[in-house]
């Protein structure tokens, strides 16, 4: 079983050796980075049971802050991740504290986080002299990495980014797995299953919800930084509602009951529309159709359905 769990990762790590198509590897890179976002979102949605709509905002805040730190203070990408994380933590704590202090649940929590997410987008959109408004920013830098044996080099080109984003995804999964297997994860589950009971058992609901929200947002912010430096471009639509909804769709598509489920969703939603040659309109239609069919036919998501079948058999 453990071996089986490592097999897909090993296969992914070996893939560029066999497959030389830049087109397909690029789809993988996008899937990995969006997969990071989806996995982290699932921490707060699938495992703590809170439908946050703030995820795209965290993604965008991470992207913008990392780039702006690099360009304003001339620090390296790695150092720039610190102010990005710090800002995300600060904002998450404020937004989360407001929502959880007032005990907002389900739909209401979604609406208030959505409102804050829109406020963040409007700030980014209108703070022209810093964020360059609707035009967005060009990210010309690439992160420099030092590896024993290889020395320091720029992460550039498809294969380098493939491994970089794969490691990012693995670290995200690792962090989520560590958190969820500890007592923290059990508190999250208790809150998801029965909030009142969890409170009666002495679990500080406010603290653990805030923790879940903040960890998920930091991970999303890091994914945003990666995305910005990979694509070389940042625009306000990173923080859009559509982006949040895409992430939710990936999670539900892949399956919200497992840590890695959302990655499957990220692959399907990123890959499928590109694999089939279609016009933009037909692509949007296909996207909608995939979404609707999975929700109606596979309510546990792709991975959930597969695993459920195997268990039933």
């Amino acid at each position, binding site marked *: 079983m453990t071996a089986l769990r490592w097999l897909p990762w090993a296969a992914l790590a070996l893939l560029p050796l066999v497959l030389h198509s830049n087109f397909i590897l690029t789809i993988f890179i996008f899937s990995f980075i969006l997969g990071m976002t989806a996995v982290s979102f699932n921490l707060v949605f699938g495992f703590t049971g809170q*439908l946050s709509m703030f995820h795209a905002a965290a993604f965008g805040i991470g992207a913008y802050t990392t780039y702006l730190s690099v360009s304003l203070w001339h620090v390296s990408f790695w150092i720039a991740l610190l102010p990005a994380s710090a800002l995300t933590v600060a904002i998450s704590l404020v937004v989360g504290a*407001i929502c959880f202090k*007032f005990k*907002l649940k*389900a*739909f*209401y929590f979604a*609406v*208030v986080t959505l*409102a*804050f997410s*829109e*406020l963040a987008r*409007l700030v980014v*959109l*209108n703070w022209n002299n810093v964020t360059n408004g609707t035009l967005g920013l060009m990210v010309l830098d690439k992160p420099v990495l030092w590896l024993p044996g290889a020395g320091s080099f720029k992460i550039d080109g498809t294969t380098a980014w493939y491994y970089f984003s794969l490691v990012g995804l693995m670290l995200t999964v690792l962090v989520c797995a560590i958190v969820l297997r500890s007592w923290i994860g059990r508190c999250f589950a208790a809150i998801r299953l029965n909030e009142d009971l969890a409170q009666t058992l002495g679990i500080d609901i406010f603290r653990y919800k805030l923790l879940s929200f903040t960890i998920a947002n930091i991970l999303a912010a890091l994914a945003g930084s990666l995305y910005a430096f990979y694509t070389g471009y940042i625009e306000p639509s990173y923080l859009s*509602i559509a982006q949040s*909804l895409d992430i*939710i*769709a990936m999670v*539900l598509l892949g399956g919200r009951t497992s840590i890695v489920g959302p990655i499957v969703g990220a692959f399907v939603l990123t890959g499928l529309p590109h694999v089939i040659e279609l016009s*933009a*309109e*037909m*692509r*949007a*239609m296909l*996207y*909608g*159709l*995939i*979404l*609707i069919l999975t*929700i*109606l036919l596979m*309510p546990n998501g792709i991975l959930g359905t597969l695993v459920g079948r195997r268990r039933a058999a």
Partner: protein
Amino acid sequence: MGQLLIGQTLNGVIVGTLYGIIALGVTLTFGITGIVNFALGEFMMIGAYLTWYLVDLVGLPFPIALLPAVVGAAGCGFVADQLLFRFTRNNLVNGLLVSIGLISIIEAGALLLWSATPKDMSYVLTGALQLGAISLPKMKLVVFALLAAVIFLTYAALSRTWMGRAAFAFAQNAEAAMLMGVRTARLQSAVVVYSTALAGFGGALYASLYSLEPAMGGLYILKGVEAAILGGIGSPIGSLVGGVILGVTEAIGSIYLPSAFRDAYGLLFVVAILLYRPSGLFGSDR
């Protein structure tokens, strides 16, 4: 200044009643089926484009074109309900995602059919009423009157007719309503279809004032949800009041404050309401 203020307030009221009619659909659907139909904005867009098509290309007069446009939007709503929403009752997240998938499909369809170029319908009613220094465009007054009338009629129907009381009963206790002989499945479908008809009606009137584009629905559904929360989920009059408050806040806010943030003023209002009075202005405390 006074003139600008009054003009902006009037505009805010008109846009606000449009938010209100979408909010009414949101509130009814949420109360009876437990989901938020985010695709309502798309049914509004369908109603608007059908009206434009019937008036400008077929050549029907506007009042006659209204009926087929609303029926068309409701027909699409019926199909969507039977194929999709029927399976997502009382499942907020699934309903949300199914409606998002539907948005994607309808919007792409509209782009294919009508392209992204904005369409302007020919004027239905020109001229304005002069009240001293203030001029009120006639069409805007008509739109306001029609939308407000539909919202009040819906309210009256909900409180006076058997079907309306059945809906209220169902929202309070589904099982008890079922035992009292309410055909629940039919009631839920009827409410979903009625909300799409309302959205289509809003869209048809929208077409007489503003230019149309396939993406127009997105803004209105967001405002509709905000207005529904502001007024209180479950309250028809609340959705009208919520919509008008939202519209006027935005219109007046953009005179005195940077207009780039106009979408934010309403949101701040909604957040404040949710934090201090979660049942909304007109909602009953539970």
